[in-house]
């Protein structure tokens, strides 16, 4: 055996051993991550209350809030979010018993199509995928998988020489023995997902670093103080004035004329501004946040976008968007979903191949080393 060949073999063993002892865990994380990408779309299919036709003139936000609060006695809307023309507007409400409830309001008719309480399916899948519902231990367990993932990618490229052939001559021998078929599938799927595995492992590594920085007490807030209203800016009245949300949205719209409205957050205290989150369309990965005085509807500050964000905030937003595929609407999500499935298949096929082949290869390699050692010992014993 030539030196080059045995070195390849060593790389190959590395490639096999990096993920194998963890394969089931990695498989689980890949699968839940893939589901998480389209969790909103899954709920849209399951729950008719979330759907809207998109035809017709939308009602003002104040009418949607009034409808939601009428449907849940005592409920106070804390935020509205718009998911697109095919979706009902979700109104999150604080309830008198301390819980929260989401009302799905038809943006055109104003009908409350359904109420959901507690955690959403989306939040559940995200918690399962991101931290095994066990924070922060689970977060570390999951993000540490980034290391074998990077390792598998690098060693895979070293082992599979001329991998680029899979781009223009993909070959999967479906009719051959399962081992051959899975091997072909592993190589072709791996080659086509190089970019995706790189994106996922780098962003996961960032999530690991991010949490380590946080626990080490290193500043991550971006150093910016929150925007608050001064006490003398708040009107004096017998009871709390309700913010004029239509005026707030109109001001935000005037400040960012080409914005696509995503989210309206009502003040969490009397001193907080209302926040309008929107995509301006200029920088697709970075949403803009317009802070608006809820009493006068004056725009106080526009945050986000390219220039306003600090380095760490910018990194966080971009990494999150790249990891989740949530930055270009449904088409991008579907691409992320497809490659997520492919990556899940890679883990599974890797395991199958390992069970059938690498066990034997390792035994042979170990035997070879022992034989070599015996031969080396030989002359001195003679």
């Amino acid at each position: 055996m030539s030196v080059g060949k045995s070195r390849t073999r060593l790389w190959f063993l590395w490639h096999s051993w990096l993920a194998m002892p963890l394969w089931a865990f990695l498989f689980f994380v890949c699968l839940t991550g893939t589901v998480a990408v389209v969790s909103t779309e899954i709920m849209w299919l399951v729950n008719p209350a979330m759907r809207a036709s998109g035809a017709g003139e939308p009602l003002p936000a104040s009418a949607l809030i009034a409808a939601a609060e009428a449907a849940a006695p005592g409920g106070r809307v804390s935020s509205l979010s718009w998911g697109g023309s095919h979706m009902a507007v979700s109104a999150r409400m604080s309830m008198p018993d301390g819980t929260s409830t989401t009302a799905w309001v038809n943006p055109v008719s104003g009908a409350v199509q359904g109420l959901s309480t507690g955690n959403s399916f989306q939040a559940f899948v995200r918690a399962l995928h991101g931290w095994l519902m066990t924070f922060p231990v689970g977060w570390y367990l999951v993000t540490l998988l980034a290391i074998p993932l990077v390792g598998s990618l690098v060693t895979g490229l070293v082992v599979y020489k001329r991998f680029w052939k899979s781009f223009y001559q993909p070959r999967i021998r479906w009719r051959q023995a399962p081992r051959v078929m899975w091997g072909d599938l592993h190589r072709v799927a791996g080659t086509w997902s190089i970019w995706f595995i790189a994106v996922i492992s780098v962003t996961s590594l960032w999530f690991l670093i991010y949490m380590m920085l946080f626990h080490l007490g290193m500043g991550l807030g971006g150093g910016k103080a929150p925007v608050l209203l001064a006490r003398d800016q708040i009107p004096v009245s017998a009871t709390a004035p309700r913010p004029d949300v239509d005026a707030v949205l109109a001001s935000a719209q005037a400040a960012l004329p080409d914005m696509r409205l995503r989210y309206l957050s009502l003040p969490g205290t009397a001193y907080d501004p209302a926040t309008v989150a929107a995509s301006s369309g200029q920088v697709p990965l970075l949403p803009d946040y317009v802070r608006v005085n809820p009493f006068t509807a004056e725009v106080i500050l526009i945050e986000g976008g390219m220039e306003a964000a600090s380095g760490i905030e910018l990194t966080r937003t971009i990494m999150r968007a790249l990891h989740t595929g949530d930055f270009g609407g449904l088409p991008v999500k579907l691409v992320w979903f497809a490659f997520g499935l492919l990556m899940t298949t890679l883990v599974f096929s890797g395991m199958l191949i390992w069970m059938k082949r690498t066990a034997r290869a390792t035994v042979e390699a170990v035997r070879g080393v022992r034989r070599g050692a015996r031969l080396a010992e030989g002359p001195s014993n003679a």
Partner: protein
Amino acid sequence: MRNDSMRHYWQRGKFHLSALMMLVPLPFLPDYFSPKPIFVPPEIRRDIAVGPFPVTLATYDEAPARMPTGERMKEYRIHIRPADIDRVRGVFLRVGKPRSLRTAGALAFGNPYEREADVTVPDELGGREELWVTMEDWSGGVHQASLPLGEIFGGKR
């Protein structure tokens, strides 16, 4: 014979052991899907009248959490009567008497019926500290009340 088959299962099964990771989230599932938390530490509650507003303070019977910044923080929830939520402009909590409204302490936020405040707790406690509640109404009135911190602190000391 029996030993051999055990070894066989171990040889084949050991690489699937990481599947046990999936058991980690299981105990948290029921809690996650109920609207109110099921597994919560015992709560300490105290009723207190702050000017015209009777409120209930609540906190978990737990020691303060150490923040990554080194501060000790304790979370309190302030239950306000539904009839009062539109009259209360702000609720502030502080360990020790505030010298002015500007230093009234942590501003409570969130659900207007059950606002929460993260209060900074000094590292060393002498045992005579008081928790001060400052409430502002929308017409500009300010009301204050206090209770011994030891009554609503929790955890082992």
